[in-house]
């Protein structure tokens, strides 16, 4: 569905089955409405992606008359997994769109992973699929701190309760018949203590299905209980060993490489739309290590020209320059990091000094102002 969301654009023609309520008026004036299933062809005007249920709502005008509908009427099609639909692109299929389709049809089953990122009193439950990270639930509770002798019970009790709530939430989300890895990550010992709690509770209540999942739990380290710590989790060796070669692991690694390159500050890393465009123009994103990182959100632009600009940039790097292009999913943590950098970044084959020099000239004035206010 995520692919469909990336694929379907404003102005495309979409054909899918739909259920529409049809109201008929009889000769006596009484109305009766019936629901009919029909196949509609619409011209897309609006897209809405429901991340939780993985449904795509597409609304647009009907362009093909049927028995029940007139031309130009509006309809919203709900696209779901295992429902057929066909797309017709107004201006033909570009390379990026074709790649999306190719990737979507990749038979390698995407490895889904559950992740629980926690710290005392805070946990985030998320599911990582091949192309998306979906935050399913956030648990937040106050856990009193340790204080004085004899009051320790408060803290331990609250922590126990917090574990129980997190566990209940996890079990509600989890399908125990599936065999998916479950990452538990936290700073300190929280994740370990949580796993212990889960297994003890499972043993006590005789939850065999849960106990069978024992080998699926992976305890790892993260700096905090926030979702963006997932980056760090995906880098730890024990996690990498299990998730090697999944798309998100690759993306995370790529983003880290880029960050490290940027921190080296030798001019071989560029980010932001203008900077990257310049770099591509100068031929720095080419054969022998040039990698263009681009977030798929850029292709989702409603403006056809903007989209075309990015597509041509990608084509240029790939075909003329011979560099590598990686499209990162904007819902993954790595993609979000990329979005923070403007949605596009590039690792260059040769250093380009002072990429930002041009902009600086314009900025002298506002900076002067800021200082003026300060002093």
């Amino acid at each position, binding site marked *: 569905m995520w692919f469909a969301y990336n694929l379907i654009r404003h102005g495309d023609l979409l054909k899918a089955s739909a259920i529409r309520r049809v109201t008929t008026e009889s000769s006596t004036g009484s109305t009766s409405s019936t629901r009919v299933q029909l196949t509609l062809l619409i011209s897309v005007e609006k897209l809405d992606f429901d991340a939780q249920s993985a449904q795509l709502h597409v609304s647009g005008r009907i362009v093909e008359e049927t028995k029940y509908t007139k031309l130009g009427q509006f309809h919203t099609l709900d696209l779901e997994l295992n429902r057929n639909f066909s797309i017709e692109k107004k201006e033909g299929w570009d390379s990026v769109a074709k790649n999306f389709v190719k990737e979507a049809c990749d038979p390698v089953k995407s490895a889904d992973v559950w992740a629980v990122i926690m710290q005392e009193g805070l946990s985030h439950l998320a599911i990582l699929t091949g192309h998306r990270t979906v935050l399913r639930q956030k648990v937040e509770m106050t856990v009193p701190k*340790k204080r004085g*002798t004899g009051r320790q019970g408060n803290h331990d009790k609250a922590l126990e309760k917090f574990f129980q709530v997190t566990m209940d939430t996890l079990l509600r989300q989890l399908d125990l018949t599936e065999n998916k890895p479950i990452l538990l990550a936290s700073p300190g010992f929280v994740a370990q203590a949580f796993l212990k709690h889960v297994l003890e509770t499972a043993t006590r209540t005789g939850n065999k299905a849960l106990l069978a999942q024992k080998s699926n739990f992976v305890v790892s380290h993260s700096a905090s209980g926030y979702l963006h710590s997932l980056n760090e989790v995906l880098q730890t060796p024990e996690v990498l060993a299990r998730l090697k070669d999944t798309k998100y692991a690759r993306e995370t690694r790529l983003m880290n490489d880029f960050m490290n390159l940027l921190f080296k500050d030798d001019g071989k890393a560029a980010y932001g739309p203008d900077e990257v465009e310049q770099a591509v123009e100068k031929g720095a994103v080419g054969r022998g290590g040039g990698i263009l990182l681009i977030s798929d959100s850029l292709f989702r632009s409603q403006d056809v020209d903007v989209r075309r600009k990015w597509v041509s940039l990608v084509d240029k790097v790939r075909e003329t320059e011979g560099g590598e292009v990686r499209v990162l999913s904007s819902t993954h943590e790595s993609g979000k990091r990329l979005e923070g950098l403007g949605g596009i970044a590039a690792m260059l084959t040769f250093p380009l000094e002072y990429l930002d020099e041009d902009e600086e000239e314009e900025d002298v004035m506002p900076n002067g102002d800021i200082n003026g206010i300060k002093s």
Partner: protein
Amino acid sequence: MSRHKLVKALDLDEELDDFDGGIKPDYDDEVSAEDKEQLRLGTIKVRDILGEDAGMTDKKIEDSLWHYYYDIDKTVNYLLSQKTNSQPKKSKKKKAGDGEAKATGPSPDDIVIKAQNTKGPTPKAAKQPTPPAKSNKSVNGVIQGVSEVNIEDTKIRGKNLDVLAEFERSKPKNAANFVVIGHVDAGKSTLMGRLLYDLKVVDQRTLDKYRKESERLGKGSFALAWVLDQGTEERNRGVTIDIAMNKFETENTSFTILDAPGHRDFIPNMIAGASQADFAVLVIDASTGNFESGLKGQTKEHALLVRSMGVQRIVIAINKLDTVQWSQDRFNEISQQVSAFLTSAGFLSRNLAFVPCAGLTGDNIVRKADDPKASWYPGPPLVSLLESSKPVTRALEKPLRLTIDDIFRGGIQNSLSVSGRLDSGNVQIGDTVLVMPAKEAGAIKGLEVDSEPAEWAVAGQNVILHLTEIDTKYLKSGDVICPPSAPIQCVTSFTIKVLAFEHVTLMHCEVHKGTLHAPGRVTQLIAQLDKASGAAVKGKPRLIKPGSVARVVVEVDDPVPLEPGGRVILRAGGETVGAGLVE
């Protein structure tokens, strides 16, 4: 458990004097509906037998019924015998023997006793009931007492004190908070445990207990640290996890220790503690190899953190010198390196003080070192250095600001209590306060300063506020309590002047301010600044290198209470990337 203890503690002979009925233990604390019905019926029957006896409350009858498993005869017996208890012991023995005969009705004797009883139980009578009933009753008594108190409390009347004048009048001792920082396993907790022990804040018996328990876990050397590390997890692992607060007083200053965890995972906790500190004690492990690894690790990070949180003065305790035979060379080497580093971090060299010590043995902590090898050190022990800290001026006049450190249930009377340190302003019982960012108002019904009940508190004190008229769901640690007249602003985007510890660019980070922490992003790099003058040297930098200063915009998902001048810490991936000042 407690009940069994009570049973054991009671004199058995006295027990037997009192009754002949078999004592059946009651394990159930819950009263089921069925039981309640039986209790009700039983109470009616007992009342019938005893006649209209004003001296017997329903409660008493029910308790005894419960105890005797609804055996009416035994209950009546017991109740009567209890009434006779206020008589001298000798006659009571006889009466208890023929208690059965009295079950028919009150005897003339009883009437007299009844009159005595109604006046209120004599101390003796209060002592007499059977052990389970006793514990029940005493608990009930307390609960009754509490409910009475509560009724009085529902209307809080503030005294409308002029807190500042009160504060002037009270001529307080100098109060100082200090945070103990250093690399993991430098011996911070042990050093502080020793300090408290030598100052007799912790008695020998407690320490012996800790020693025994820690030895059982195979961690004998951790006994002193256990004085501060109270958590189960902390003790099992031998690592401090959360800040421990402890108090001690010297002749002219009362100190609050904030013992910070050294492990890098718990730096958020350390930040929370350090934000409440006036000065810092940096503990350094002098043993070979450990000092070097510490300097690269948290010794450095902690020192930078406390500096960026506004701590000026730092006492450096070079610990574990006993393991290197009190080598003066080692001490000098370490102090040189550390002092070079600290001055480069922005501490003035006159604000640094070094002391060689050994936490485990207690040398140079409270007393001078006994070891002749340590005689080269002429200076005072650690505690005297602490005392020489100058009193800090506090923002008493400014509006109230209190960052919530912890939320808990402060006893039976107080269902909702918060603790923290008053950053500025003052507060007294009866004040209405606003909790930000929830924007919920509550009232203060009770107040504790340093765990002692008080009427008011001023900036710089560690307080516990007992709140009422507010639900616990509106509170979380890191929230700010402020007066409704001058609420703190909550922002989702703010500009900070940041000193970068690591590379800073457009990235995700966590924003820490004291106990407050929130996920955020650096969304804009406005300008790189000159370190000394603060003037912009480069607009829109692509990257901020470690050690440089820049002005950046930070966005957070949910509004956070922040004011200009507030000091924030940015962390990413388990590392502190920068410290900033909100503009």
